[in-house]
């Protein structure tokens, strides 16, 4: 597929042609993010970074996402193994894959906030494409959580170099198993989960066996970060992250799923049959379950919140554009009071979804994993040339550096970990519920037109539902909120 380049701020003319209710341009940065704009005087450089990321994402959405989203989806419907190489290349050209990667490893090292704003904007156009471009963030976060700086450097450098070449080597994260979905994302549930995967210790490394399912980008990733216990009878104590390269003997792809929406981001089964990985491919010294997993999902669930805020806004923009240009009988649709009320509700929902994820984002910037991942502000201030020098590289791989990051995770207070975890769960569950509601309201406003694929709104509805499911179902996230924010002990 050759990428169709769009123009920014197209006007929608005529009642029936084109059918697609092209969204009007959204409000600008100051209006959408007053919580940041208000800080411009005190933190000008930081706010400038956020604003540039927002503009950058808006340009990508207008020129690449909007003109290609529906066609890409139809291609993926025909063939779920289709790879959107042109879109990946356009994203690579804009360095969208390495925005989270620390500067020390060649990435842009953008603050978490800048990445979240980017996710919202792209998701307003197509959350499937946003997921295609961003799901490796879960892998990077997982690697960072292990405290294995050498591992983080390896995956980061590979991503940076391939991005530079225009063919990004993507990362996927293998967590879900056929008999254990939600259970794998909570340490309490993991204890009784029906885990079938196991990384058996052998001479020089581990033999991986089992299957991982629903792995986003699993069929196109070059490297997989796979969660597996070394003893499946004790998953809480022995689950580690392993790096597995595509093409490793014993590793293969199973089914690529046909799913309801977010088709731009393929979901695949990863199959491990006596797949040998070397000792150094096991990341970190301590098992992930517990505060490390809490910190990982505290960050990435905030990202799902940003996806959801984008979908909520995309639904609002399309419904508004439709109401402005169509009639119900002889009357303009926008003149109907019920339409005005529904649009107002959609605006409220969008604002609330954004507040939820921004709150999670700030929590992460205060004491979440991502603040630790940037390997300290000191490193970020070093000139790039110095960062690439051999002594600094050696220092990053050193035991001292690892202990510093390890110490960072260990040094957090329990309440800080709990607050980060809870805010991520709140952002994910609240914003995804609001996004699904907005898509339903958009369908109500568009009526028959909303049912057609070429209008783009039914796609939003299908895409939105997955937000309530991945990164733990919203039911699991409510349990997390009860445990982490309210200090409760969960019972069935």
């Amino acid at each position, binding site marked *: 597929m050759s990428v169709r380049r769009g123009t920014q701020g197209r006007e929608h003319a005529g009642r029936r042609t084109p059918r697609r209710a092209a969204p009007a341009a959204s409000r600008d940065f100051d209006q959408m993010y007053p919580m940041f704009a208000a800080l411009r005087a005190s933190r000008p450089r930081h706010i400038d970074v956020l604003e540039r990321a927002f503009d950058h994402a808006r340009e990508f959405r207008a020129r690449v996402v909007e003109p290609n989203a529906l066609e890409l989806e139809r291609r993926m*419907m025909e063939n779920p193994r289709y790879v959107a190489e042109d879109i990946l290349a356009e994203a690579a050209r804009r360095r969208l894959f390495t925005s989270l990667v620390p500067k020390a490893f060649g990435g842009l090292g953008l603050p978490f906030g800048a990445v979240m704003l980017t996710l919202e904007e792209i998701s307003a156009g197509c959350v499937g494409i946003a997921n295609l471009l961003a799901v490796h963030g879960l892998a990077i976060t997982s690697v960072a959580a292990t405290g294995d700086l050498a591992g983080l450097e390896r995956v980061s450098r590979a991503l940076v170099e391939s991005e530079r070449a225009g063919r990004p080597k993507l990362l996927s994260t293998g967590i879900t198993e056929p008999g254990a979905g939600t259970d794998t994302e909570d340490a309490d549930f993991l204890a009784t989960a029906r885990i079938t995967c196991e990384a058996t210790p052998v001479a020089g490394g581990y033999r991986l066996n089992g299957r991982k399912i629903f792995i986003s980008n699993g069929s196109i990733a070059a490297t997989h970060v796979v969660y597996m216990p070394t003893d499946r009878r004790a998953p809480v104590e022995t689950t580690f992250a392993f790096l597995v390269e595509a093409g490793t003997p014993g590793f293969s792809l199973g089914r690529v799923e*046909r*799913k*309801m929406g977010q088709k731009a981001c393929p979901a695949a089964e990863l199959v491990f049959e006596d797949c040998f990985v070397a000792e150094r491919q096991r990341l970190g010294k301590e098992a992930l379950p517990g505060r490390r997993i809490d910190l990982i999902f505290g960050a990435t669930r905030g990202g799902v919140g940003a996806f959801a805020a984008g979908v909520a806004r995309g639904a609002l923009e399309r419904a508004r554009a439709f109401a402005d240009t169509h009639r119900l*009988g*002889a009357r303009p649709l926008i003149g109907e009071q*019920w339409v005005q009320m529904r649009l107002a509700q959609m605006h409220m929902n969008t604002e609330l979804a954004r507040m939820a994820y921004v709150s999670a984002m700030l929590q992460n910037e205060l004491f979440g994993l991502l603040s630790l991942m940037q390997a300290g502000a000191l490193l970020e201030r070093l000139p790039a040339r110095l960062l690439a020098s051999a002594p600094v590289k050696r220092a990053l791989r050193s035991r001292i550096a690892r202990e510093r990051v390890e110490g960072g995770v260990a040094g957090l207070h329990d309440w800080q970990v709990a607050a980060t975890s809870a805010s991520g769960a709140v952002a994910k569950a609240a914003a995804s519920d609001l996004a699904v509601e907005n898509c339903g309201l958009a369908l109500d406003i568009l009526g028959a037109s909303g049912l*057609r*694929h070429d209008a783009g709104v039914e796609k939003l509805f299908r895409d939105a539902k997955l937000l309530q499911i991945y990164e733990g179902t919203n039911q699991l996230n409510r349990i997390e909120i009860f445990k982490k924010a309210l200090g409760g002990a969960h019972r*069935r």
Partner: protein
Amino acid sequence: MSGGERQLLRTSVARFAAEALEPLTEALEQGESLPPAVVDGLRALGLFQLGAAPEEIALLGVALETLADVSPAAASLVLANAAARALLLDAPSSAARARALEAPGPLAYPLYADISEQIADGGAWELVVGAGPASHLVLPFDESSVLIVASEATSIRLGPLLLTLGMRGCPTKDAQLLEPAASSRVEVDVRRALARLRAPAAAICAGIVGRSLRTATDYAQSRYQAGALIIEHQEVRAMLARMLADHAACHDAVERLASGELPAPLARARFIEAKERAARATLDGVQLLGGNGYMEAYGQERCLRDARQAACCFGRLEVERQALLGEWLEGAAGA
């Protein structure tokens, strides 16, 4: 209509759906249309002849609830035909009407159009259900007239097959009238004719929710989470209980609407309720299966898409709500 007749029809339709439609599910989802053999099968069951008299409405309700359990797409093809027939039967005699009614069927009708003071928009209709296999299109022009157009007439241009949210496989196209004078426009009270079809339309909702509930219950009884069967979790039990209540409400709506005993506002209220509950219940149905619910292989996501589309049958829910209150206030003033 006897219980025996109902049971016989239910059994016949269920057998046809299992043998002829169930194996086609995946192909229909991938973009194929209901094949001529299926249309012939529906015709052979007599489903394209039902939909005028009260007893026929009840039978159609039974048939469509059974059919929608397997293929809401096929059920919506039958419903569109029934809507077109109901409109023609209420219209005064004319040659065009007679030709359309004598055709073997199905007839096509824009099932999701709002019935407002001006339905035809510049001579264009969206989502005409059945366009393709239908011999004739019956197109509502305004609240009090319809156009009858032969599918092969040069006065009409049909667009390509459309991909829609749900009901995939049901042949659906846009229609554009090129020569208004060449079509036959007949007077008919569109709202009144379509009101008779609420029971079979609600039956499609009931059929979809029934399947979704069954799938969710089976899943919850066979899968584990947090060391226990999913069904042992209180939250899951609450979701299933809501779905059960939704299904009961949809099914009850079909029965009450088919009886013809409900006064106008209550009939409309029941219809609205069935559509709302189907859309809500199937959201829970997907959620309950987690990631599996989102994958086509389990069929649950199809229930959600089909239910959301069924909720737009005969127009927007909000337009229905506004009309409901109008009818109720009118009735109260009359009393």
